[in-house]
């Protein structure tokens, strides 16, 4: 399975409102597919983390991946 977590404002802005869910892995599944599946508008997701490292919209996901999606965030 693929673990997906949506942070900060993203669950409020998605069509499903989900914060955390799992996806069945399938060939060619990309981060873009996940974002579109949640009904998020283009540009809402600013930071993509896959297993703790930066990914892109085109990154392909495989079984066991942990995906974190973030809007623009900052602080310190």
């Amino acid at each position, binding site marked *: 399975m693929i673990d997906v*977590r949506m*942070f*900060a*404002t993203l669950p409020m802005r998605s069509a499903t409102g989900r914060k955390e869910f799992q996806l069945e892995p399938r060939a060619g599944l990309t981060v873009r597919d996940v974002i579109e599946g949640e009904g998020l508008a283009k540009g809402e997701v*600013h*930071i993509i*983390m896959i*297993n*703790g*490292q*930066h990914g892109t919209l085109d990154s392909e996901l495989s079984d066991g991946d942990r995906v*974190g999606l*973030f*809007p*623009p*965030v*900052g*602080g*310190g």
Partner: protein
Amino acid sequence: MRKILRVDVGSGTASFEDLPPDLVPYGGRALTSTLIAREVDPQADALGPDNKIVFASGLLAGTTAPNSSRISVGTKSPLTGGIKEANSGGQASGRLGRLGIAAIVVQGDPRGKKWVLHVSKDGARLDDGAPYWGKGNYDTADALREAYGPKVATIQVGPAGEYGMRNSSVATTDPEGRPARHAGRGGVGAVMGARGLKAIVVDDAGTQRPEIADPERFEKARKTLVEGLKTHPVTSQGLTNFGTAILVNIINEAGAFPTHNFHQGRFDRAEAISGETVHQNCEDRGGRRSHGCMTSCVVHCSNVYNDEAGEYITSGLEYETIWALGANCDNSDIDAIARMDRLCDDIGLDTIEMGDTFGVAMEGGLLPWGDAGRMIELFEEIRANTELGQKIGNGCGHAGKVFGVTHVPSVKNQGMPAYDPRGIKGIGVTYATSTMGADHTSGYAVATNVLGVGGSVDPLKAEGQCSLSQNLQEATAGFFDSTGLCLFLAFAGLDQPASLASIPEMISAMYGIESSVADVVALGSKVLEVERGFNRAAGLTEDDDRLPEFFGNEPLPPHNTVWDVPAEQLDQVCSWSPVIELG
């Protein structure tokens, strides 16, 4: 003409003098560091009679510029043994700007006397501070308002500073009068306490905003910056809605959230202490989110945090504090963290140093991991200055020695903030090479390593981190720490050239000079050079620009990386040049 207010706690006198001509375009850190380097012997005992403490307002203090009321507190640090500038928000700096005061220099041997400095349009005087000595910061702020009027802003020390503890902060009051904003780092409170100075009361009644040489030009630049801040998603949405604690989840996800005294990079209960949780509790309990720590703020990253019954606990519950007293100590009780934040603010302790100290003390067996109840009890030991309180009130380095722990996350004896340098190597370079000791604000490479602001440099690789950190350290010293502008403006400034350029433009308009982006960076570079010169003369060397050994030996889960930025590259950041002529 901005002035220096010179206060001698030995003779009990306060007098105004002109800024030296070469320091007229200096504010904040540029002013504190230059004055300390000129006037304090680098070899002086930081808590002895020859050290001084300087409180400087920013170059734009008191104007309509957004987020322009940071106050810089400069001295020789009793924690690091080097030069120190710690800055804070709150109301005081803006008021000093309206009073035309660029800096307050406090010097002399109080010989047991206790003072309160009162500053207003009518001048400055030292009053008896004995009635306030021994009080916590909240009671002190209340008592000072009762004595001097409801609208004064105050700068003060708590019991930890009075005792000379090396973890002690200088508090400033926020727009509601709460002493919740702190120049926390480096033990600056102990130096103020050693001068016998309990508080500075700043009363700006009857004053005007400072004069602007070219108001039209100033207003145009100001509008550009405000527009930039209100459109950049970090400064208009992320920080505004969730506060700085929005970082908990992303730094945890990046695997660089120091957990269990820097043994792990992820905390399995991060959600319980996340910005999202804090946000929800503020909403549900009648607290506030989107709170400003100063009236000129347009970002509003602060909050007001209440308990379940709706009673006020603390304000400005921030990422660093939540990490330090939370994940670093295996504690996921967010309400207990809020209570400890209040205790730190009241006793006058730096929350980062305190969390690092607890982590070390837990490793040494003083208390069980995650025991928030015992942590809260131990704060009262510090407040009462017991032997146990002294063991944990002097920073994590001291605690490491007392409890026989070598796993101490510090540089130059100052505890590390909330990013593990093995998982975010750019910030590791800043920790190692900053003149301040382990400090995240002096070159916030996290922005570029993780947050996708100001470009992108892979956080797990050594390549590119030194130049990233050096550029950020120079820019930070120039654009933010020396102007009195909030560092969070950098999130907009790094992505929006017009926002960055508006800063020298406002300075030019205000002072009738011509300052450019390059000039401000050059000033930042010069400030660092002065600070390095002081540190060198104080006895710090290249060996002090290193991270503790364990970072190079112990892989950090989940990425299992070690600290591997070569020492010779670190030395290029600092360019350990010969001691420069000071003054």
